[in-house]
């Protein structure tokens, strides 16, 4: 019985809750983003060897780290969908997929641009790059599957299964690639630990940017999910009322 309740109840609950959150999220993102960008682009000194290109880091690292976070998130949502049949979870999962794909693509792009400056090539079959690329493929697979199945419920479960299987694979892929390549290109296996060798004025803004981008990610996710909720619940009473109210205002 409560299952049924969870199914119908939670989307609305989330929708109304997120109504309250969003303003604060917007605000905090604005502040941090402006501080972070200002700091990163104007204040941070040029890197002695990388020059201006170091500034790419401030967008690349946050984006990349989020892109890594997306798949597990999707898998968790999928598990909830399968086990507790919670509709909201699937809506989140559906919203994460494209966002994750975009962020992964962005990480690839920024990385590529940076790589063009540092390594003199847009692409190298470096462990980290490759694993991210494969993760990108996994995202595409989930999206393709979702768009291929037209029954919403079936698509939800199918994508959940795929997301879980994929999530089990992501670490395996990362590991296998990692050690596959450590022999080949240690040079390109570039890891600049942002903390120790660099002065705080380099990594503090990085932290700020990371937070800002995370909040941005949260906002995007919430907005997409809200859309999805309205889309799927369009025939439930509360949505109809909502729309009516919007019209009157």
């Amino acid at each position: 019985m409560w299952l049924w309740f969870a199914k119908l109840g939670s989307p609305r609950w989330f929708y109304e809750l997120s109504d309250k959150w969003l303003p604060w999220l917007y605000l905090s993102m604005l502040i941090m983003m402006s501080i972070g960008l200002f700091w990163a682009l104007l204040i941070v000194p040029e890197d002695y060897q990388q020059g201006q290109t170091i500034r790419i880091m401030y967008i690349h690292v946050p984006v990349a780290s989020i892109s890594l976070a997306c798949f597990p998130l999707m898998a968790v949502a999928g598990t909830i969908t399968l086990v507790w049949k919670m509709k909201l979870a699937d809506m989140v999962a559906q919203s994460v997929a494209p966002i994750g794909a975009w962020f992964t693509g962005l990480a690839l792009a920024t990385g590529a641009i940076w790589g063009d400056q540092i390594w003199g090539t847009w692409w190298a079959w470096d462990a980290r790059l490759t694993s991210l690329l494969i993760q990108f493929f996994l995202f595409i697979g989930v999206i393709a599957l979702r768009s291929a199945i037209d029954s919403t419920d079936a698509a939800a479960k199918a994508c959940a299964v795929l997301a879980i299987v994929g999530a089990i694979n992501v670490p395996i892929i990362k590991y296998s690639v990692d050690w596959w390549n450590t022999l080949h290109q240690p040079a390109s296996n570039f890891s600049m630990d942002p903390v120790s060798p660099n002065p705080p004025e380099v990594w503090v803004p990085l932290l700020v940017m990371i937070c800002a981008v995370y909040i941005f990610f949260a906002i995007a996710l919430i907005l997409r999910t809200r859309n999805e909720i309205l889309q799927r619940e369009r025939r439930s009473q509360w949505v109809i009322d909502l729309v009516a109210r919007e019209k009157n205002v």
Partner: protein
Amino acid sequence: MPTSQQNPATDPPPLIQAQALFCERDERILFSDLHFDLTGGELVQIKGSNGSGKTSLLRILCGLNEDFSGEILWKGEPVAEVREDFLASMTYIGHRAGVNRILTPRENLRWSASLQAPADDKQIVEALGRLGLRAYEDIPCRNLSAGQTQRVALARLLISRASVWILDEPFTTLDVHGVKNLENLLAEHVSAGGAVMLTTHHPLSVNCKARALDLDQHRINS
């Protein structure tokens, strides 16, 4: 008769009880608050025009289709909890015959048997003969005609010792003798205490306890 009018104290719980079934397919409600039950020794024919939801209902009953709401009881317990017992005593034959085109009828049946209720070769040949497929046991099913394929599928009913038969338009492509033949089978099974739930558009004439469930007006008319 609807469950409500039935006194659970007196008679044993019916084999299948469907309570408040609700199913909608792309925005169209097929049936809502559908109550009925299927007891041993009776045949229920599901009537309804094309697209009224007969196939959907049958698939929901045997658990192939899960997007519905409502409760299905098997011998009084939620079917989810006694699933394997339910499956062990139910046979479903749908629009798609479930007959592999490369294997012969014999091999097809052997596999079906192993899935549900073991049957030896004699029984299989017997079953096929009973459905007028003697001499066709070893012809690859791709070379069988539409009706013959359907007969192979129906032969499963004979080898599975299931008490509940769920049949979706079993008479399709059967010729006159085939229809008679199947009607006799159904009557036998029901008289022997089995239960049958089927859909068909052709006027059914079986001499056993039979009632109709018309989906076009959601109620059971005895």
